[in-house]
């Protein structure tokens, strides 16, 4: 009995299932059908027994050279894994959900699918419009009087005017400059401070306050000032020095 949990009639049913494999909507559908042979509440179903039934089904299909879709084989592999874990005593060192949890979830999935099937059947058994009850057959025309309300908001008006007045200086795309420090700005700033550069000083010390809080602002201000001092060095206004990669960039006024 332990070796063959299926009765003769179940086996016959299984064989007819094989012939009918095309009729199943995937492995879950097949599992639900197999679970009926246990004739118990889906909540008390033996997932181990179900796994064995499914694996037997797949074996038999292979024997009959029936082409099974990939998801049937994936389910078979997973059920074989689940079966082995259900049979073994739980390993306390093992990570992840227990075999019991996996089995419970599968049973719940089957119960949910079954519930949806029953709900669908109940839904379709309801009185339906055009079959059991009917809408008015002779609708009366409703005359429509169309009136158009033209709308425009103040913002539309101002935007339109702004667009007209700035046609020449129209900028198709403007970056959000809140976190951007431009090289022009840096150049203006550094030029103003040129007189204060004495001996070698770290460029980082000359960056404007309030720009080191946000990484985006820090990157932008650093890049802008670096470009500015390169430009100033090119013009012969300052000297630049860097000890090595990522070392501080030192600047001083050219004598």
């Amino acid at each position, binding site marked *: 009995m332990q070796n063959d949990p299926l009765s003769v009639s179940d086996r016959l049913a299984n064989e007819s299932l094989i012939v009918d494999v095309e009729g199943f909507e995937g492995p879950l559908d097949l599992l639900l059908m197999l679970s009926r042979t246990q004739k118990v509440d889906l909540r008390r179903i033996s997932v181990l027994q179900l796994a064995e039934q499914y694996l037997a089904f797949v074996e038999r299909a292979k024997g009959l050279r029936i082409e099974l879709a990939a998801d049937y084989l994936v389910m078979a592999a997973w059920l074989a894994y689940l079966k082995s874990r259900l049979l073994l005593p739980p390993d306390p060192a093992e990570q992840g959900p227990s075999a019991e949890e996996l089995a419970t979830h599968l049973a719940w999935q089957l119960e949910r699918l079954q519930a949806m099937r029953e709900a669908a059947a109940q839904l379709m058994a309801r009185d339906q419009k055009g079959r059991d009850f009917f809408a008015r057959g002779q609708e009366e025309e409703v005359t*429509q009087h*169309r009136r158009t*309300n*033209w709308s425009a908001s103040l913002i539309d008006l101002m935007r339109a005017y*702004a667009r007209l007045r700035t046609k020449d200086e129209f900028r198709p795309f*403007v970056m959000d400059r809140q976190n951007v420090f431009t090289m022009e700005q840096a150049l203006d700033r550094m030029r103003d401070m040129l007189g204060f550069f004495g001996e070698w000083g770290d460029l980082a010390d000359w960056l404007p306050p309030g720009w080191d809080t946000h990484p985006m602002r820090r990157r932008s201000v650093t890049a802008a000032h670096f470009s500015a001092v390169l430009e100033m060095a090119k013009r012969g206004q300052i000297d630049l020095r860097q000890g090595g990669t990522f070392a501080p960039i030192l600047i001083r006024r050219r004598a």
Partner: protein
Amino acid sequence: MTGIPIAEQERMVEAVLFASAEPVSVAELAARLPEGADAAQALANLRKHYEGRGVRLVRVQDRWAFRTAPDLGFLMQRDVVETRKLSRAGIETLAIVAYHQPVTRAEIEEIRGVAVSRGTLDQLLELEWIRLGRRRMTPGRPATFVVTEQFLDHFGLESARDLPGVKELREAGLLDNRPAPAMMDSAADESQQGED
């Protein structure tokens, strides 16, 4: 004969007439009703039941149908109010009149850089957002356009002078032509408030 109560027959006739796309003759009713029913009697009772109601049972030649009571015909009309955005030409023309009034058509065309169609001005005139102002005392005595009280009312302005200038528009971020309406709206609100 059949033992179907006449009230039940009345229900049946009511349902059939309600659902039918065409008026139904007594003969058709009799054919549909169960054997032995008295369609004519049921019809007569039904007609009585609907007397004075919002719908009536009426005879169309020798067929029967439900119809709205004639005194309620006015309910079968529906006013559809459709809100549509003013066209770009319309809004630009309106903006120019508001900012430059009194302004001639030629001046509007100069600022827009394109001809202003008669329809655009007509629409604004019809909406009563602009009206004709005084004629300009220049050769040809061209007509000028000014905005109306209704315009100020619609846009919530006390006077056309309250409209923000180009500089304020820029400060409000309105000259940045990027699609961030929520931000721009709030910025514009602020600039308006700033002027109060």
